[in-house]
């Protein structure tokens, strides 16, 4: 019994972090109508930033997160100014291709700077576990879950209660009607892209906290983000977090019975089931139009 409890709790903690990796993708798809295929490479880039800053200055995790957020904000600004402003009135497929290109460039640059080797960020003060009754919770898991919850919570409150957040929701429903009310929707799209990137950066820090990583791991994290999005949908960021949690718990429980090397199958099974289910939902929605 204790084993199951421990498994569920660590599944929850890991799952929250999975939810965070899907958050940026959900956000850019749901609010910006853009599938950011560079999400995986951006997450890995965030992990490398965290690793480098930690090794250089031994910063604490909160400072690491803030620093990575700032750098990703700058990166988003540069991409917005250089590439994306020319894509505003191009078709979605062209935007998708350009983002593929961006992903390719980022992956190559990360391999060039940090080599293709597997690396790990080891923060000495987070290497032990917190003992809670019969539960033993690794500090890294707790910290990354907390980052996921705080990031989602802040984003949710921002969308729900700030004027800019309301304008983002309004523009997502109708770009034209928002423009008619004086909202500069190309600025809104730039802001949505920036938030999506910053979320990828934060997710990268949690990847670095929990796993060893290498530039070519980007596919794996893009797939994870995609699975989270398919399970959670793109309408609500809270259901994205919940989707991550469900996946984390399922994966952890499956780990009790399925051999380690087959655990990824669980993820793909999830994707398949979710796609089936969502297809129905989509079909129903289209029929009701």
């Amino acid at each position: 019994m204790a084993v199951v409890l421990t498994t569920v709790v660590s599944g929850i903690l890991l799952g929250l972090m999975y939810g965070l990796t899907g958050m940026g993708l959900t956000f850019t798809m749901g609010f910006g109508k853009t599938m950011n295929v560079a999400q995986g490479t951006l997450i890995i880039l965030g992990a490398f930033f965290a690793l480098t800053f930690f090794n250089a200055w031994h910063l604490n995790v909160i400072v690491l997160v803030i620093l990575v957020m700032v750098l990703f904000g700058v990166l988003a600004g540069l991409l917005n100014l250089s590439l994306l402003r020319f894509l505003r009135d191009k078709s979605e497929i062209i935007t998708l291709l350009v983002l593929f290109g961006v992903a390719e460039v980022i992956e190559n640059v990360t391999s060039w700077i940090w080599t293709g080797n597997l690396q790990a960020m080891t923060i000495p003060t987070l290497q032990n576990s917190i003992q809670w009754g019969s539960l033993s919770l690794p500090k890294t898991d707790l910290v990354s879950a907390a980052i996921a919850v705080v990031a989602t919570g802040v984003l949710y409150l921002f969308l729900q209660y700030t004027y800019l957040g309301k304008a983002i929701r309004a523009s997502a429903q109708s770009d034209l009607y928002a423009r008619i009310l004086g909202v500069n929707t190309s600025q809104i799209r730039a802001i949505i892209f920036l938030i999506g990137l910053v979320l990828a950066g934060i997710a990268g820090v949690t990847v670095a906290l929990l796993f060893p990583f290498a530039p070519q791991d980007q596919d794996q994290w893009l797939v994870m983000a995609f699975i989270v999005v398919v399970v959670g949908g793109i309408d609500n960021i809270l259901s994205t977090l919940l989707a991550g949690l469900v996946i984390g718990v399922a994966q952890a429980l499956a780990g009790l019975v399925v051999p380690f090397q087959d655990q990824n199958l669980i993820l793909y099974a999830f994707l398949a089931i979710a796609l089936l289910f969502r297809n129905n939902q989509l079909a129903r929605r289209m029929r009701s139009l």
Partner: protein
Amino acid sequence: MIGSSAPISDAATNNTRSSLVMDKITAGYHADQWVLNGVSLRAEPERVTVVLGPNGAGKSTVLKVLYGLVAPHAGSVRVGDQDITRLPPEARLALGLAYLPQGHSVFPSLTVQENLEMGLWIYRHDRARREEALERCFAEYPVLKDLRAKLAGSLSGGQQRLLEVARLMLPNPTVLLIDEPSVGVAPNLVDILYEHIVRWRNQGKTVLLVDQNVEAAVSIADYVYTLESGRNRLDGPRDEFEGRLREVVGQWLRLDVLP
């Protein structure tokens, strides 16, 4: 921060009664396939100016050019003595223009209150003004106050139209561009909408109305323009126009059935 580059003038206290002028506008959605071919018209303060024409004549496009949603190829748009041809919609809003598009334009998954707040986006840095405007709005439309926590998408069609009208008037515009207000609206509400339009006219606002409901629109019009295939056809004061109304509309009906 957003759009602060737009010259924000004071639409609410700026009581200069502005006439709106469209001068020889050529415009369209694809280069060289012009929907408007040199259209000119003028809407005056304290007047309802109506634009009529058969389907596809370019009436809605006229309003989109006036509001900055379609950039013209040639010609100019002026409000008062200011050339606004190249200004984006947010700058036109700040100059006192407001546009009610064809069809339902509420944000269904925002609440009524949030929809209204979006109507005050150009005053996002002026909380006092926003609160005052919302208070005025709720005093005028008490129904909306009761519904304010509801999602706009859950309202009836009539309530949604009311919400759109309330949101349109929140920044206290002086020039109103209204596209097909009576399409898809229950008859009793249509009467209320026309009453509103007359009231706005009497308050000194400039009203430009595009309408399929020819008879009703002409009955509240001061001046009428007709468009055919993106060109000016006839125009004149209502009294002059009313006599030829049947003849002109009859022609359109015949035009519509031609292949």
